[in-house]
């Protein structure tokens, strides 16, 4: 409403401005035409008078009348004064209108400017003065000056009816146009309000406006447009809904596939057709000690320096053709040390076109454990065959000697029989030991537990190991309590475990080293500690030493031989007794292994 009022106000002001402008223009025009009339009249009159002989204008008292006649006889109210002056500029005759004082003459001295006009002022009056020379036979006798009132630009009373006549139609027409305009605007305003409501309601419906003519047509078209937009929006909404659903489905499928790939025990990498990595699971990132993001955002060279991996990926970047093949590579990583990694690549076929591939799947399988176990098994078999061949060698030599001349000697026969019997015993115990180990490993043996004096069992094992190391320059120390409660264990198995630990302590000890065996009866457990002063165990290998067939990479250990079963067997024996075999990590020199045999209360507490 305010807007409509403002329009009305603007129209009124504009109409007033128009009227004022028209009036000003009219007055300006009127004054210009008056000035033009005065000029025409003044110039011609001045010329006419200059043609009259000077004597006729100025002889005696009657000549005064000529000038008066000029002023009043012409009947011209615009003429303010008429003067005749002599050559010196002195006024000879003069006639002025009522209340007018003729100003002094200001005729220029140059003859060329004698005929002309100029503006004069006298008091508050303003005049246009025409002057002309009075000549007698080309001699200057004097001047005639005709002063006209300057036309007045102001409003005079007689002009008011004219102005009123002029303003009336304008004032009449303005409200008419204003109301006409308001009438035309009303449906547009109504439509505007309706559309505003539509915008506020955020809906699509037709705008009900009764309008005719152009506006009616516009409203019809607008409604048609709204209908079209409404149906279009509906279609878009449906599309959006469909897209949202399929996007959710895709996300779910993608997540499912990625979860499967993340759950796989192997490290997995997916390359697209150009050989660019498009997916890598967490295990791959861990294998190369980088983040998944790094793998996806950087070229392979940026996060991997292993030539085998680079050349493998390069194959797909250059050929782009995926094919099945297997490759085994060995490389070191900061996170895991030297690993044996087997890679297998699979082409990824497009779901809708099985003859074309969309990329390659590379599976990195860490076969370090298998490789280690394979090597350890080979070493073990080699070691075992050596162990078996030594007694066989003695048997072979003695049996052969019995057939020769030496065999005829009764003494030799007795010696041979004894040696053969001893070697057969040795073979037998070796085989029994192997069997025991196999059975413990397979879990088919159950310990034959009895209440035994542990200090005796440990002492026996100690003596056995000491005897076996007779050729070594080791010092042996045994510290067992004199009195302690009997312990419920399989004494043969515990003896094997302690012997294994001691034989390691002897084997890996330094020259003139010490092997210390301690038995301690604590509140929670009975502890057997076997310590040496040897080469010790490196931090990296601490976690692996109890693994079956594990052999340290240390050259000093390699030189000493062994089959990597001693500690594994000892741990299995201890665990059969629900105990724990641990490596004491606090030692600075050599190694110390601790067998913890939990007391019953502790064992129950731990089980709970």
């Amino acid at each position, binding site marked *: 409403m305010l807007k409509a009022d403002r329009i009305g106000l603007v129209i009124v002001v504009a109409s007033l401005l128009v009227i004022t402008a028209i009036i000003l223009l009219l007055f300006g025009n009127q004054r210009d035409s008056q000035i033009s009339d005065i000029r025409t009249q003044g110039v011609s009159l001045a010329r006419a008078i200059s043609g009259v002989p000077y004597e006729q204008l100025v002889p005696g008292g009657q000549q005064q009348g000529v000038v008066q006649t000029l002023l009043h006889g012409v009947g011209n109210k615009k003429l303010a004064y008429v003067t005749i002056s002599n050559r010196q500029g002195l006024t000879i005759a003069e006639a002025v209108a009522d209340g007018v004082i003729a100003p002094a003459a200001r005729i220029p001295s140059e003859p060329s400017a004698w005929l002309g006009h100029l503006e004069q002022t006298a008091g508050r009056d303003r005049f246009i003065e025409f002057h002309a020379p009075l000549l007698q036979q080309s001699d200057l006798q004097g001047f005639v000056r005709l002063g006209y009132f300057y036309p007045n630009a102001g409003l005079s009373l007689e002009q008011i009816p004219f102005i009123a006549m002029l303003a009336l139609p304008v004032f009449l027409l303005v409200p008419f146009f204003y109301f006409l305009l308001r009438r035309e605007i009303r449906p547009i305003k109504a439509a505007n309000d309706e559309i505003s409501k539509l915008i506020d309601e955020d809906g699509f419906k037709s705008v009900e406006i009764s309008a005719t003519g152009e506006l009616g047509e516009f409203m019809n078209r607008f409604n048609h447009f709204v209908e079209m937009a409404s149906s279009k929006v509906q279609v878009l909404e449906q599309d959006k809904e469909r897209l949202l659903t399929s996007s959710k489905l895709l996300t779910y499928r993608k997540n499912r596939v990625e979860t499967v790939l993340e759950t796989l025990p192997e490290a997995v990498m997916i390359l697209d057709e150009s050989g660019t990595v498009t997916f890598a699971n967490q295990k791959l990132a861990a294998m190369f000690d980088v983040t998944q993001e790094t793998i996806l955002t950087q070229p392979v060279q940026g996060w991997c320096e292993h030539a085998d991996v680079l050349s493998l990926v390069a194959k797909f970047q250059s050929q782009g053709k995926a094919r099945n093949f297997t490759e085994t590579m060995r490389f070191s990583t900061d996170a895991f040390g030297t690993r044996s990694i087997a890679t297998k690549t699979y082409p990824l076929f497009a779901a809708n076109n099985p003859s074309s591939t969309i990329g390659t799947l590379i599976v990195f399988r860490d076969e370090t454990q298998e490789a280690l176990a394979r090597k350890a098994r080979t070493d073990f078999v*080699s070691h075992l065959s*050596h162990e078996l061949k030594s007694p066989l*060698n*003695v048997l072979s030599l003695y049996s052969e*000697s019995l057939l020769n*001349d030496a065999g005829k000697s009764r003494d030799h026969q007795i010696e041979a029989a004894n*040696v053969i019997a001893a070697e057969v015993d040795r073979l037998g115990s070796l085989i029994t030991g192997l069997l025991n180990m196999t059975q413990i490993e397979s879990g088919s043996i159950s310990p034959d537990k009895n209440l035994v004096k542990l200090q005796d069992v440990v002492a026996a094992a100690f003596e056995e190991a000491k005897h076996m190391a007779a050729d070594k320059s080791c010092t042996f120390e045994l510290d067992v309590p004199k009195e302690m409660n009997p312990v419920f264990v399989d004494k043969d198995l515990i003896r094997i475990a302690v012997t294994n630990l001691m034989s390691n302590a002897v084997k890996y000890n330094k020259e003139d080293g010490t092997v210390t065996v301690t038995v301690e009866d604590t509140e929670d457990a009975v502890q057997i500690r076997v310590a040496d002063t040897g080469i010790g165990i490196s931090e990296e290998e601490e976690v692996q030493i109890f693994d079956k067939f594990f052999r340290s990479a240390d050259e000093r250990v390699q030189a000493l031989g062994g089959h990597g079963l001693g500690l594994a067997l000892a741990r299995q024996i201890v665990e059969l007794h629900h105990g724990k075999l641990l490596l004491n990590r606090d030692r600075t020199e050599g190694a110390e292994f601790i067998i913890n045999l939990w007391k019953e209360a502790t064992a129950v507490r731990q089980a709970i």
Partner: protein
Amino acid sequence: MKKVLVVDDQAPVLRVLKLGLEGGGYEVDTASNGSECLVKLCAGHPDFLVTDIDMPRMNGRELCEAIEDQFPDRAFSIVVLTSRTEMEHRDWTRAIDNLSFMEKPVSVRRLLSHIGRCLEDTDKLAGAM
């Protein structure tokens, strides 16, 4: 009579080898490990050396390497009795001349014929020179 030095840590093996080789017409001396053998070599060289591998103090490999080091001009051949058949356990022998292997279990008959062949070769070589 040719002299053979036998080195083994197992006393019964030493005894039976000594008996067998003496039966084959050799004069036999024995040592129970590498160190003892080296001591005996300093006193005088045999015509042939038979040694075991797995021995305490100084094993067969260390003994052979010590001989190569201490007696580069030795004239006698060496036979190593071993139960290790893998190549990796024999690589070290490439650097040592006049060294052969005999796999366990050993037969005295085979050992005698091997020693005989080796001595013949050595004699031929000495004759040719």
